[in-house]
């Protein structure tokens, strides 16, 4: 039996401990905001936070999350950085198809938590693992700056 903390709720699971956290979240816990894009840590669509750090849930076994705090897109608003990022995304209408955006937001929130005033180069480095086939990259950069500005005045 594995005990998990997902977005502040405790969940227990007694299935395959090797199941990637991604599929546990989506198929077992019913949290479908976290997306599958590649399954090989190549696209970032599955990014969630594990004890605050961004990880690719498609290559992280659910057992590795035991006893740790998992935050997904459904829970990211609870934290002021996550909330600022979501608000900036909405203000600038970053999304197109939207499929990559949960992962983008999770990566952006993690970046801003460690770097409150990232440069374009910092953003490119932190966000390079998150693919957007709709190429919303121009707005992703702008929205991260926008969220940084909001947090600076908050």
């Amino acid at each position, binding site marked *: 039996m594995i005990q998990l903390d997902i977005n502040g709720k405790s969940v227990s699971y007694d*299935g*395959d401990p090797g*199941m*990637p956290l991604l*599929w546990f979240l*989506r*198929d*077992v816990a*019913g*949290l*479908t*905001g*976290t*997306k*599958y*894009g*590649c*399954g*090989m840590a*190549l*696209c970032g*669509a599955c990014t969630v936070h594990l004890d605050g750090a961004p990880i690719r849930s498609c290559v992280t076994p659910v057992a590795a999350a035991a006893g740790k705090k998992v935050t*997904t*897109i*459904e829970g990211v*608003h609870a934290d002021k950085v996550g909330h600022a990022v*979501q608000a900036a*995304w*909405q203000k600038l*209408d*970053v*999304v*197109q*198809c*939207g*499929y*990559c*955006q*949960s992962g983008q*937001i999770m990566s952006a929130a993690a970046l801003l938590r460690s770097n409150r005033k990232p440069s374009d180069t910092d*953003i*490119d*480095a932190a*966000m*390079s693992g*998150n*693919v*957007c*086939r*709709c*190429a*919303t*990259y*121009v*707005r*992703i*950069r702008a929205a991260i700056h926008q969220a940084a500005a909001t947090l600076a005045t908050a």
Partner: protein
Amino acid sequence: MDHIIVNESRRRFLQGAGGLALGIYLGDAFADSAPAVGGEAAAAAFEPNAFLRIGADNSVTVIAKHLEMGQGTYTGLATLVADELDADWSQVKVEAAPADVTRYKNLFMGIQGTGGSTAMANSHEQMRMAGAAARAMLVAAAAQEWKVPADGIVVSKGVLHHASSGRKASFGQLAGSAARQPVPQDVKLKDPQHFTLIGKPAVPRKDSVAKTDGSAVFTQDVRLPGMLVAVVLHPQRFGALPKSVDASKAKAVADVVEVVQFAGNGHYFSGVAVLAKNTWAARNGRDALAVEWDESKAFKLGSAEIMAQYREAAKQPGLIARKDGDVEAALAKPARLIEAEYELPYLAHAAMEPLNCVVELGDGSCRLWNGEQIHTADQGAVAALLGITPDKVSITQVYAGGSFGRRANPHADYVLEAVSIAKAARDKGIKAPVKMVWLREEDTRAGYYRPAFFHRARLALDDHGALVAWHHRIVGQSIAKGTPFEQFMMKDGIDDASVEGLNDMKYAVPNLQVELSTPDNVAVPVQWWRSVGNTHTAFVKETLVDEAAVTAGKDPLAYRRALLAGAPRELGVLELAAAKAGWGKPLKPGQAGEKRGRGIAVHSSFHSYVAQVAEVTVKADGSFKVDRVVCAVDCGLPINPDVIVAQMQGGIGYGLSAALHGAITLEGGVVQQSNFHDYVPLRIEEMPAVEVHIVPSAEKPTGVGEPGTPLIAPALVNAIAAATGKRIRTLPIGGQLGA
């Protein structure tokens, strides 16, 4: 989401217009059906037509007949309705239309479907009329209730107001009595100067919130009670069939429920699917399959052999797609001759959401949940497969995580595959709904690519450098041939999708001949890919004209200007992009060892006009970076300027991804790429700054989903030529500059 239509006459009206789907519509109580965007759908108090519902709670629900796959259609369709209605943008929600061609056809296609950048172009008037008719009925209701003349009533932001009597009411308050008003036969549309939403910058997307909080439902996210997930194994080679399947190990995986085989019909593939209670178990089961394939009918050529064959074919005349003047005479004694050959690869769409489809079979019926791009064609194909009538195939529309054309498969390939799997499972006694998912590897390898093309061109310049002759041969597979679209897209053996953009070019060249050869022995599955034929024709045309300008010693902008004297809208975007980019002013020099260059391209597709200027920096080691792209677009009346900007940004990124890295290659018939490490997507550090300028226009609105895509490759290659003198004629650019 039960919709109760309280008005009987309206109900009859709707039944008359599309009786069949109404049953689905009214009885739509599935937990997983597409939610209205921007809030819960409310009971309709007023449903004046198929595109609009107004609730007593003041909600205005716009019914979107087109798929939202990122291109902003939900926002666009809602903007058109809401502006004529004078609704407040915050009260407007969007809900996907059911599959019902009688009410929801694409007026350009005659079937229900989304594609060819037609969503706004085909429906702008229809949507405005829908809003205007509802507004007239609300006004009539107020006039009747308040006993005042209708022309004294003002509507603004969802509120009706009569100044002299001081009466005021919201849409919701009047909805019930508006529903009793006669539907007006004739409605007057707004004078554009009174637009409140159309053309305005601050009209937020309707799908932004759901797509930033994890609540947006894509096909991949549909969960139904008891549903099984089917992970698919396709053969390595197109056209192979399963000979023997050993499923014992797969069935031993915990949570695997069943293994089924499905047969291809020549257009969609055969394969094996593992059905399980979750995706991970299905995937593990798939990996444990032992399948032997019959490859006797499989396609076994490689990309190099295909290209070699095309190169030979280009030495022979093809079918004539355009003939002006006499190219051979003009080419006999040119002052200067340019001869060039181009190789362009297969491209995968590689949408972020790999292909998938949810199927629930009933007795004599089928229900699909899908990011649905061509409802009518898919309904027909599924019905034929199941031996039922198309009206028994219902579709719940959900968001598509990209498509770029892939979800509009002319053979309904992945939809038929999902239905075949569900049918095979049902034959084994499994009645549960099935979600078929392709893992990224299947999505990359299982075909339907932008066709590979070979081009050969000869251009003649006269003593003054003027372009006097252009002879062009194109070799590549047809998209339309053998599909239901053949009758519309092919004429005299020529698939328009192979030659568009070249055979209809606007450059005034007195002697112009375009020929096409279509191979009949290449069985790689091909399909439209964002901007279709323009993906290759714009590249070749715009790099060739550039080369002609340079050969003539002329400025590439001035050279194009002269050739486009009779094409005012092409000229308009060309001049705008050039002016905003500072064309003619020297570029800021790079650092030591770096070379910088600027390139321009102009092209029209889907009745929209785009020009782009790209600036590039090439380092001494041959690595390079696109620094900035300036884009001008004329798409007629701009409906949502910010969506237009987004589509240009995205189109440039999508085109740049292909120009830099995109190639599907085959060896012995086997696709060599599988995931994002070898089918490399554009990443954020490669994305240039993009500036978009929209031409103000009162012309009919045209599309923006595709026309931004085809210009970045030629603009970039022209910039590289300006910086280094090197002409790139094979895509992707990859390491051709030495890096």
